[in-house]
Every structure is written in C-alpha cells, then in structure tokens.
C-alpha cells in the first residue's frame, strides 16, 4: 500500500491557518478559568480565599519591587540593558528557507533577511524595514495597534510587551544555554523567549514556538531609545506585503476560460520545449486572473485582468484530462493535491515591477523553495517551487520532482513562437 491517501490527508490538514496570538490567549484564559469555576463549590471556599490572599500579596510585592525575584534581578538588568526610551528599536536577522541559484554560474546563495523596526510607544507609530543582502525590499509605516499580517514580527511583539508590560507582568528565567559560544539566560514572556547574554545582559537571540519547534532570530539591536522623527520617514518601496523566503501572502487564483479555446497566445512567451527532465509537454493552457478583494490585489498596481499561460509537463502515461491544476495558483502550490504530486507546471505572467515573490529574486537567478515545509509541528511534502523573471515574464515552476528537475526546466526556458492554442 502506498502512502498517497495519507499524503492527501496531510495536505488537506496543512491548509489550516495557525490561530493568532489573541485567540491563543483567549483560549488559554478560558481553559484556566474553567478550573476556577470547577473549584467554586462551598466546601472549597476557604482554600479559594487563602489562595486569593496569597495572590494579592504576590501582586503587591511585584508592584513594589517589580524586578526582584527568583531570577536574582536578571530581568531588571536585562531591561536596563535595553534602556527606557519611548521608542523600541529592534534589528533581527534570520535565514530564509529558500536558496537562490544563479543560472549561469550555478552558485547558490541564501540571502539573510534583516528586519529593522521602530515602535513609538507614546504616539503609536510603527516603521519596519526589510532588507536582504543590503538591498531594501520593504519599507512600511503604520500604527502598531492597526498592524496587519506580517508587518509586525513576533520579536517586535515580544519587545514591545517587554518594554511596556513587564513592570506588572511575568517575564521569568526559564533556562540557560549558549549561543555563538556565549552563555545566555532564557527569559520567557508569554509564549516567546529571549536569550540574554549572561555577561552584558543584552538580548542576543529570540525564539518563538511554532508547534513543537522554535523559530530563531538573531538579535543585532534591541534598545528602547529616544524619539527621532527621521526614524519614521519612509525611504523605500511602499507596502510590500510578502517577503522573499516566504510564500506570498495568500493565493492568486486564476480560472481557465473555456471561451479562450482557439484564441491565439501571443509571443513572447517561454517554453522549456516539448520534453524536459524526462517529462513531456502535455498541455498549454491560457488562464485569467481577475482582480477581486481577495485575489492578487497587492503588490505593484495590476490591471483588472491578467492573462497568463500554464505549461503542464507530465509522464506520458498520465491522463491529459487531469493535466491542469485548477483553480490556477500562480504561486505554484495547486490546491488540487493530486495534481501537485503528479504534474510539473510552468506558470507565466506578464512581468510586474516590485511584485513579490519575483521581486526579491536577483537577476539571472531562480529562487527555490524546498518541497518540505513545516506547518506547526507537522512536516508536509509540497511541490518544489521556483521563481524567476525573464524576457518580460514572471515565472513560477512547480514540480514534485525536486530541485534538479526544477533547475533543468529553468535552464531550458526559451522564447517560444506564437501559436494557436
């Protein structure tokens, strides 16, 4: 028995978005209140009264002497190392899960992503800059309270909470370790932890839980500084919602259009030929993405309807009728799980400037995303995805066959001739 049905089930499960932090906190509160309700019976009343008294005393002690406690003043020293200015300034780095391959030289690189944020607590202003290899990708301004999606990193949440909430809250020492050969203390606040240098007390590593795993970010700067208006002036591109190394936020679905049968697909468009990487070209299908509230409404200004082309490659033994994953997802992860495991598809769109994920790919290179991804504590198998721009087209290659097949297709892409489709 093969594992196809289990694979399908896991992919079905993997589509679930993670609950947000607010939901997590609310459910935690509900769950733990449940115990309190259960204990509210008359014979337990004395112990409840005693417990309440102890809790009140503990809170009072915290308010009087917020930084002293079982950590021996560590939290206080860590806070002193951060400073007490009104603006939280944070610079973190993390390695993306993708790699860029230069198609001419074959050289691989994984540009480290750097996020720099400023949060003005007093005026609720927020700025975030994303750079990769020193190149500015994203520059956002907004308010912290009205933040959206990826605009505020988990590390920023943590430090804002640390700087604004600790005096009445519960950061605590939860362990020790080493990072870059330096001993560190782990301080936990909520569901995230920061590694504090044991000698300087500066925060140098941040981690947040994702299922059973931790996601790590190196901290380069974490300071609470004075207000400087120039920190809140945007200098780079505006409102880029997706970063290299991640899937673009959401899907951009296109529909195959029956009325398009017999229409002419105009050059220039690209093909990897009738056979590549042991696969044969099975179908060439035009598709259309129509701009709606939820679909492809971000990135560079886009026309109302975008006409693209999908080349579907597969084994000659597979049925042509199953060839095109539908609805079309130009980011390369078909919602049809069966198609995703059987076919290799090349999606082509007219090039649009400053549109992720193609925007982040260096010229002449292809960005490759691994065919394994983690959803919470689950590792799921997904197609290998490649993004590149060439000859005025933004191209996505989606294949279950692995990075070598993907690279062979990327190498093989060349301008096709006009043809009847």
């Amino acid at each position, binding site marked *: *028995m*093969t594992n*196809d*049905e*289990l694979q399908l*089930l*896991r992919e*079905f*499960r993997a*589509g*679930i*978005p*993670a*609950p947000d932090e607010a*939901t*997590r906190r*609310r*459910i*935690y509160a*509900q*769950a*733990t209140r*449940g*115990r309190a309700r259960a204990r509210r019976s008359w014979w337990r009343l004395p112990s409840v009264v005693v417990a309440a008294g102890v809790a009140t005393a503990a809170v009072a002690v915290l308010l009087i002497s917020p930084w002293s406690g079982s950590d021996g003043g560590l939290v206080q020293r860590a806070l002193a190392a951060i400073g007490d200015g009104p603006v939280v300034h944070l610079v973190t780095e993390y390695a993306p899960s993708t790699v860029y391959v230069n198609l001419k030289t074959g050289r691989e690189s994984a540009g480290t992503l750097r996020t720099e944020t400023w949060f003005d607590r007093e005026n609720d202003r927020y700025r975030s800059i994303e750079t990769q290899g020193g190149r500015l990708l994203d520059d956002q301004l907004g308010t912290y309270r009205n933040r959206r999606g990826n605009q505020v990193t988990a590390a920023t949440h943590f430090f804002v909470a640390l700087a604004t909430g600790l005096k009445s809250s519960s950061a605590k020492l939860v362990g020790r370790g080493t990072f870059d050969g330096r001993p560190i203390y782990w301080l936990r606040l909520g*569901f995230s932890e920061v590694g504090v240098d044991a000698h300087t007390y500066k925060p140098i590593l941040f981690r947040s*839980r*994702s*299922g059973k795993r931790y996601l790590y970010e190196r901290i380069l700067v974490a300071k609470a500084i004075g207000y400087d208006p120039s920190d809140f002036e945007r200098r780079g591109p505006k409102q880029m919602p997706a970063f290299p190394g991640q899937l673009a936020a959401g*899907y951009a*679905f296109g529909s*195959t*259009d*029956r009325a*398009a*049968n017999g229409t002419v697909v105009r050059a220039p*468009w690209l093909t990897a030929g*009738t056979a590549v990487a042991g696969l044969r*070209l*099975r*179908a*060439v*299908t035009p598709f259309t993405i129509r701009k709606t509230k*939820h679909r492809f409404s971000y990135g560079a200004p886009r026309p109302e309807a975008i006409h693209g082309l999908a*080349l*579907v490659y597969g084994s000659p033994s597979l*049925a042509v*009728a*199953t*060839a*095109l994953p*539908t*609805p079309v997802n130009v980011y390369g992860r078909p*919602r*049809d*799980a*069966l198609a995703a495991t059987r076919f290799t598809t090349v999606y082509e769109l007219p090039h649009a400037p400053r549109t992720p994920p193609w925007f982040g790919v260096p010229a002449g290179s292809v960005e490759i995303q691994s065919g394994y991804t983690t959803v919470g*504590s*689950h590792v799921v198998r997904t197609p290998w995805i490649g993004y590149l721009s060439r000859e005025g087209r933004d191209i996505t290659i989606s294949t279950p066959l692995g990075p070598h097949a993907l690279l062979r297709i990327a190498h093989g892409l060349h301008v096709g*001739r006009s*043809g009847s489709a």
Partner: protein
Amino acid sequence: VGHSFDEVFAAEFEPLHGYIRRRLGASAADDLTAETFAVAYRRWGDLDPARPVRPWLYGIATNLIRHQWRKERRMLRAYARAGAEAPVAADDTAVDRLDARMERAPLAAALSELRREEREVLLLHAWAELTDAEIAESLSLPLGTVKSRLSRGRQQLRNRLGLGGQVEATHLSTIEGQP
C-alpha cells in the same frame, strides 16, 4: 507529570486547534479547543505521571468531537460540494470559504463515507500524527483494533479516491498544443 500545563498548552495548542478546526470548522475549533484544555486543566492533578500527555489530550478532544458528529458530517459534505457555496460559519475566513468551495471534494466525500470509528483513527494518525500506540492510548482501545481500523480506513479511502487508477477531473479546460 513531566510537563507543566503551560508547557503542554504552548506545545499542543496550535496542532490541536488545527486538528479540531479541520474536523469541525473554525467556529467550533475555538470552543472545543478551549473545552479540551479546560478539561485537561481540571484533571491535571489526576493525570498519571507514567502516561504521555499528548494521547490523553487528544482522547479528551476526540470525546468532545464525538458529540459534534452531526457538525462534522455537515462539514465534510460541505467540502464535498465543490463549486457550491458551502455553509460555513459567518466568522470563517475567505480562505476557509475558498477551501470549502474549491478543493478536496473527493477526499472529503470519501472521508464522510467512512465509519466514524475508522475515520477517527485515520485522522488521529494523519492529522494529529499520533502513533498507533498513542491512538490506542488515546481511545482506550487494544493496539490490534487500532491497526485494523487504520488499515481498513486507508484501504477504503484509496478505493474511493481511485488512487490505484486514473483520477477523474471534470472541471478542467485543457488545451493540447505545442509551443
């Protein structure tokens, strides 16, 4: 018990919430996840230190989900009606609605046709990623029963999905051609 409640909550909240959400939908997931952890919190002191926590937690969730079997059946039938507006809750996201409408129809249909006992074991295996022994612990069943239910469930799913043969696709508009 080797772990504190907070540690278990931190590690298991997201997977458990996702598991319940896929089975019963977004609106029920919050309530049932909260209820599962509330039961766990209340019984924390009674937990045998020798027992692993995860199967115990999913056992609680499974019992709660069983009371919602009508909702699960409605959910799977909604998924199965690809192309139609699925009756999702008002607070479900656009992605949920797309999910319900556009994909996985055959899989959802096949799941809805499985016997509850087999579906339960299969989903604990594939979605909660429990081992056979953990499922046995979770459902208080003999290991052999778990193995046979899992095997039957998988086989039935394969048969219903036609995974041995050609897969039908009726909504495609493919155009053969050469560049």
